[in-house]
């Protein structure tokens, strides 16, 4: 049995794990659930030798062990499939599976037995991938299988799967769950981390719920219903999270997109009215972010985007000037300049108003301060770099940056990713207020509850196409998933 005993892990002032005890038995699937930032990833990284606990210990079969490196974790039989897949794109499948444990003959890698080993491991996960194929040619689902095969080829006794189905389609999920069940039958202990509570309910013998770095609940098979888990994750009734939706506005749309065709993207008709919140649902990779980027003019596409009564060409500066603002999902990569002060970030999309041509520092600071008031951004001073803020406050800076452009249509891509529960509620309230003030909002989210709580209408995408629209009465998790996965309605 693998045990984590009263583990605490801090990062500077932040406590990511607070006195958490957890265990994994052989022949068991142990579900691990929690909101973003609840501490799941930190726990996994401690179990895989990437992070060290600040206090507390690990034990294997009752004996205390320490895992100072990933190698030491592997040596005691722990294998991890990380959420962000960690294959080497420039190596082929068999090289990846053997990575770090290559069979050799003299100084050379023994390619024959390397390939045979890969073939064996792939067979155990029921995959027919060619071991000689370059990893860069594989689909995400295939890469996932290769990762699991790699773990098995290392004779892992304990397998940790971090969000294994985040990128998979419905049939691929089925296949993965079958693989997990086989592994359990073979005596492997599987830690299964997932946002998809139905999968956890179906697979897990036990479920641990983490919230804000603490162990808040443990369920046995049978009692682990999705709603019980969800309530434990959030710590209150879900319905309280979301402010009351104003009545759906009627009247003319402020944004209308017709016959949008881009690379792998098709959107016959999408419109949004002032004061309306429209959700976009779909699996990862279904083209949701691409659709938003197309609307904001960052991707080439044919078709027509009309703001008010003008057709606006697909150029970012034109779209921004016409009142379209896109708040990116990836604050690090595309959203913010993390090393730069909060004040600069707040005016980053509208420098022209603050420089003529010399930058008017006071006005920039003034602007940032007014957004701090308006959005309730918790910060030291507006001249601190953005990376000193928590995820939720960074997201608010992101919002400020785009609200500063005085948009008519706000496009939000995963607005609560990496944002803690408290700040989430604030962001929901803010979206609600903005809509009440007449802003049109289009929001992409992977969290169905969020869409159900926030939106007047939801469009569902599959493989780059909008495949359905659900209004307030029609929308439910099941309805969305049916459309998103392409399962025929029975």
């Amino acid at each position, binding site marked *: 049995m693998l045990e984590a005993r009263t583990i605490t892990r801090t990062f500077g002032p932040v406590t990511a794990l607070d006195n958490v005890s957890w265990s994994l038995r052989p022949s068991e699937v142990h579900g691990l659930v929690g909101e973003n930032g609840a501490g799941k990833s930190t726990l996994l990284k401690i179990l*895989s030798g990437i992070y060290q606990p600040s206090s507390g210990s690990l034990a294997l079969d009752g004996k205390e062990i320490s895992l100072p*490196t*990933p190698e030491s974790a592997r040596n005691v039989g722990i294998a991890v499939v990380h959420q962000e897949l*960690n294959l*080497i794109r*420039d190596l082929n499948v068999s090289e990846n599976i053997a*990575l770090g444990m*290559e069979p050799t003959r003299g100084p050379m*890698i023994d390619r024959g037995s390397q390939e045979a080993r890969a073939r064996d491991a792939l067979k155990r996960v029921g995959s027919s991938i060619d071991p000689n194929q370059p990893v860069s040619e594989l689909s995400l689902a295939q890469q996932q299988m290769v990762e699991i095969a790699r773990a098995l080829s290392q004779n892992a006794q304990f397998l940790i799967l971090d969000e294994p189905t985040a990128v998979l389609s419905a049939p691929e999920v089925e296949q993965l769950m079958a693989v997990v069940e086989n592994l359990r039958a073979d005596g492997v202990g599987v830690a299964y981390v997932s946002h998809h509570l139905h999968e956890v309910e179906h697979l897990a013998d036990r479920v641990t719920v983490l919230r804000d770095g603490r162990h808040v609940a443990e369920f046995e098979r049978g009692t682990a219903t999705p709603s019980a888990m969800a309530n434990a994750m959030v710590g209150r009734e879900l319905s309280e999270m979301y402010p009351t939706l104003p009545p759906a506005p009627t009247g003319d749309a402020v944004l209308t997109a017709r016959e949008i065709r881009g690379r*792998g993207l098709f959107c016959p008709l999408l419109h949004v009215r002032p004061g309306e919140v429209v959700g976009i649902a779909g699996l990862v990779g279904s083209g949701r972010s691409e659709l938003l980027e197309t609307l904001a003019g960052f991707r080439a596409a044919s078709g027509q985007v009309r703001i008010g009564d003008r057709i606006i060409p697909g150029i970012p500066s034109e779209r921004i000037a016409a009142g379209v603002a896109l708040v990116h999902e990836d604050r690090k990569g595309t959203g913010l300049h993390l090393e730069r002060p909060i004040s600069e970030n707040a005016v980053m999309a509208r420098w022209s108003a603050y420089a003529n041509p010399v930058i008017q520092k006071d006005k920039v600071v003034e602007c940032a301060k007014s957004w701090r008031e308006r959005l309730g951004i918790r910060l030291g001073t507006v001249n601190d770099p953005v990376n000193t803020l928590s995820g939720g406050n960074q997201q608010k800076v992101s919002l400020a940056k785009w609200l500063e452009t005085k948009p008519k249509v706000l496009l939000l891509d995963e607005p609560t990713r990496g944002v803690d529960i408290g700040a989430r509620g604030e962001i929901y309230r803010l979206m609600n207020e903005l809509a009440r003030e007449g802003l049109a909002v289009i929001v992409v989210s992977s969290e169905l509850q969020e869409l159900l709580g926030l939106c007047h209408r939801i469009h569902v995408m599959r493989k780059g196409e909008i495949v359905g629209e659900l209004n307030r009465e029609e929308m439910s998790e099941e309805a969305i998933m049916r459309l998103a996965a392409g399962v025929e309605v029975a």
Partner: protein
Amino acid sequence: MKSVGQFVRNYGPLVALVLLFIVGAAMQPEYFLKPENIRNLFAQNVDIGLLAIGMTLVIVTAGIDLSVGSILVLSAAVGLEVINGRASGGETSAVWVGSGVAILTGAALGFLNGMLVAYGRLAPFVVTLCGLVAYRSAALVVGKSGEIRSQAGEVFPNIANSGIELGFLRTATGNALNIPFSVFGLLIVAFAVHFALERTRWGRYLVAIGSNERAAHYAALPVARVKTSAYVVMGVLAGMAGLFAASRLNSVSTGSLGGLKELDAIAAAVIGGASLSGGKGRIWHTLIGVLILAIINNLLVLQNVSADWQGLVKGVIILLAVLVQRERRVE
């Protein structure tokens, strides 16, 4: 299955080399195709070839080494000083010892670079930029800011110049063609390193680290050690290159020897398809890159193009090579 892009990446450099060769043969049939001209293409580029092979390893790890020209000159200077100090006691033994010292000097400097990059977590560009200026300066100190003349004139030049006479190839004057040992040295090194990169764990780890360092770390690979080793091999090869270059001239001019050679080495690797963001690069492709650069130089000289123009032409050719091999962006 095999797309045009893949074909270009696999065989593009080779096709370019063949085309250039044909162009050369058509433009200057009587000079370009002479056996001694072909021989010189190799013999005069042994040092760049060695540097480019090492550079490919470093680039595969997503690194860069700007200091190789300076390592070259410092290794050669130190080696030659040792030879001169011992020459009175017998040239042959002095040359053996001095050669060993030169290569060890290269290894030590490469080790220093590698440690700073891998364990000191400094950017390779910055570390080796410092090396570029510092090692050159050290060479000037060793050579008292001038030329070091070899005092082993009987033996030392043999390293680069003596070779095997191939009876079946004749020079224009009817003599048997002499292929210097240095050319064989280059080919042996190329073969060995190619083999190591493609077929050994060490080589695959270089690729894995350059392709995705975090994943390599998670896979429990000895990232820092392997990275350091790439710079050490680079240093050894730079030391060898220094030895050959010094032997060819039987002297080391500490101010100029090896100057800007790092750029030729990087250019050859890039023409051969190595990606500066790591994970991609093959030795035989890099050697083709070296030959492409060599033939361009050769043709420009044969055509009496002024040296002023040569850099311009090279710059354009390298840009073209990179453009053609640019990976289509994956959406």
